[in-house]
């Protein structure tokens, strides 16, 4: 095959300019390395931040009772709206898109005692869906609050992992042990799995204890939940569900469904969207930096190609005399530049993959490295890098090739 012939000659010629080619190839390899690593760090950051974001919960919206700001059905503005467990049930029954819902009672400054240790901590009262809505997953051997606990108002308690450490130390079997809450004995049923949590209210989940909402009600006779947390089945349903919640609760408490002050809404889904856009922006930025590095490398390739054209002017003339068309000459130089790009890209790609593997193996602890120290390779990264490499190779070859094709055979043969 023709291209095979050209390729063979080209590789043979490469050996004559080994050092120069090696430098150019390493330039491309370096560019590829930086673009892949930057993108991989961006990807890793995105994944880790995503995980951290899930620490609060997945697809959840929180409703806080507010104050009406519109006159409605003869009622004045400025009325306080507060929610009860009945409202939780009402929303659950009326809105099919809700896949989980729970009221949440907050208690601050509660006394927890285990053995000789006494702590003053935060305790919340919730329903079982909290487990999957707010990522309160138990470590092996334990469980979260279940419906029977709620029905029977059991005195069971689920501890945040960090709280457990402070309260019970390294106690190997905390499940089933009894601790006291304000002097009342509770059985520990589960310890939360360690998780990254970026957004929070009241404090990190790892530092609090959770008991059944009904148990909490019976302890201090509360009526009003501090907030309602619900999860929607699909992110795009969130606005619809919110609208419905306003209508249902508005009807019950007689406020204008369009009164945005009546209920304060914390929509983590919207927040995630903004966040995700920001991360995509960061990744684009990182990719751009990488691409610019590669571009500099491509200037090197173009440079060497120009020198190569100059040095081979005579050879070009000879080929033209033997019947090479301009396109043959062009092809040759473009192919050389592409080959340099491909070889450099392959080397850079391999090295960066190895580096990513190594970096992923290094433990990151829980500092800022938790977010940055996990570069992740993905196919979109590979494809975009290959694409940029191809463009860079073509661009680096195109202009020198154009000049080569313009070489006048008579001129180039004249100088012996």
């Amino acid at each position, binding site marked *: 095959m023709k291209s095979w012939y050209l390729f063979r*000659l080209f590789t*043979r010629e490469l050996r004559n300019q080994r050092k120069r080619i090696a430098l150019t190839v390493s330039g491309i390899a370096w560019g590829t390395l930086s673009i892949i690593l930057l993108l991989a760090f961006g990807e890793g950051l995105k994944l880790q931040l995503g995980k951290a974001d899930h620490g609060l919960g997945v697809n959840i919206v929180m409703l806080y009772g507010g104050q009406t700001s519109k006159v409605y059905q003869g009622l004045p503005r400025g009325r306080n709206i507060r929610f009860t467990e009945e409202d939780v049930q009402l929303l659950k029954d009326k809105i099919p898109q809700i896949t989980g819902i729970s009221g949440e009672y907050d208690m601050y400054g509660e006394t927890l005692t285990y053995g000789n240790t006494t702590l003053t901590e935060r305790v919340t009262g919730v329903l079982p869906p909290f487990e999957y809505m707010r990522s309160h997953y138990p470590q092996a051997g334990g469980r979260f609050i279940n419906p029977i606990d709620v029905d029977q108002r059991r005195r069971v308690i689920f501890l945040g992992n960090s709280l457990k450490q402070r309260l019970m130390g390294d106690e190997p079997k905390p499940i089933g042990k009894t601790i006291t809450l304000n002097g009342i004995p509770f059985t520990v049923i589960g310890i939360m799995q360690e998780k990254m949590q970026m957004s929070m209210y009241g404090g990190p989940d790892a530092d609090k204890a959770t008991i059944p909402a009904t148990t909490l009600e019976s302890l201090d006779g509360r009526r009003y939940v501090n907030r309602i947390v619900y999860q929607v089945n699909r992110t795009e349903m969130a606005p619809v569900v919110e609208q419905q919640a306003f209508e249902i609760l508005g009807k019950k408490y007689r406020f204008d469904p369009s009164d945005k002050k009546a209920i304060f809404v914390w929509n983590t889904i919207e927040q995630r969207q903004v966040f995700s856009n920001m991360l995509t922006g960061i990744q684009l930025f990182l990719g751009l930096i990488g691409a610019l590095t590669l571009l500099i490398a491509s200037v090197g390739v173009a440079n060497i190609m120009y020198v190569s054209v100059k040095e081979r002017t005579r050879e070009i003339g000879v080929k033209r*005399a*033997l*019947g090479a*068309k301009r396109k043959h000459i062009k092809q040759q130089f473009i192919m050389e530049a592409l080959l340099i790009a491909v070889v450099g890209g392959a080397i850079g790609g391999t090295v960066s993959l190895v580096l990513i593997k190594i970096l992923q193996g290094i433990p990151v602890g829980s500092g800022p490295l938790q977010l940055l120290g996990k570069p992740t390779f993905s196919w979109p990264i590979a494809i975009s890098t290959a694409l940029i490499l191809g463009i860079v190779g073509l661009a680096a070859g195109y202009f020198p090739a154009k000049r080569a094709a313009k070489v006048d055979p*008579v001129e180039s043969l*004249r100088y012996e």
Partner: protein
Amino acid sequence: MIQMENITRHYDTGKIKVKALRGIDLTINEGEFAAIMGPSGSGKSTLMHIIGCLDTPTSGNYTLDTKKVNSLSDNQLADIRNQKIGFVFQSFNLLPYASAYENVELPLIFAGIRTAERKKRVTNLLERVGLADRMDHRPGELSGGQQQRVAIARSLVNNPRIILADEPTGNLDSKSGAEIMELFIDLWKQGNTIVMITHDPNVSEYCQRIINLKDGAIENGFYTKNGNGVHGE
């Protein structure tokens, strides 16, 4: 075969206008072995470049093998060089990193000939110029005479209508030079048309016809005693 009418070639290099050729009328018939002679600056090379379709005349008509060359495109000229003309240069002009075999193969690549056919032709030609055992050698591993043989094989590989040789023995010692001239004579006797540029009278003695150039015009031209039908019979 070659018909030139009032060919001129002017170079316009800024301030100076060079009239390299000032009206050449020349006909070279099929099967001729012609030497173009003249002092340097007489326009030999320019004439050869025009005959070889590397350059186009400023004015005048040039017909090669019944085809008018004046008005052809760059690609068409490349095809003519590839198919109808075989170049042999003074400095051989082989690709240094390619073997003898690959050097001869090159014009076939541009012609788009298939591998099997290429192999047949290249092997055949290298045998014919006596380099059957040197096919895999690079030019640097060959003597000057051998390199010129490779170049001659290369010029023949597309069965051209005409072989254009520019001082083919200029870089060779007299013994190798004589051998190369023998090779050209053989080729001529086999029916090839050869136009050779030289300023060496010894070389021109091998030729059938001598054309003397001076100041871009033909001073005189005549057939030598070799012309008495060595070939035509």
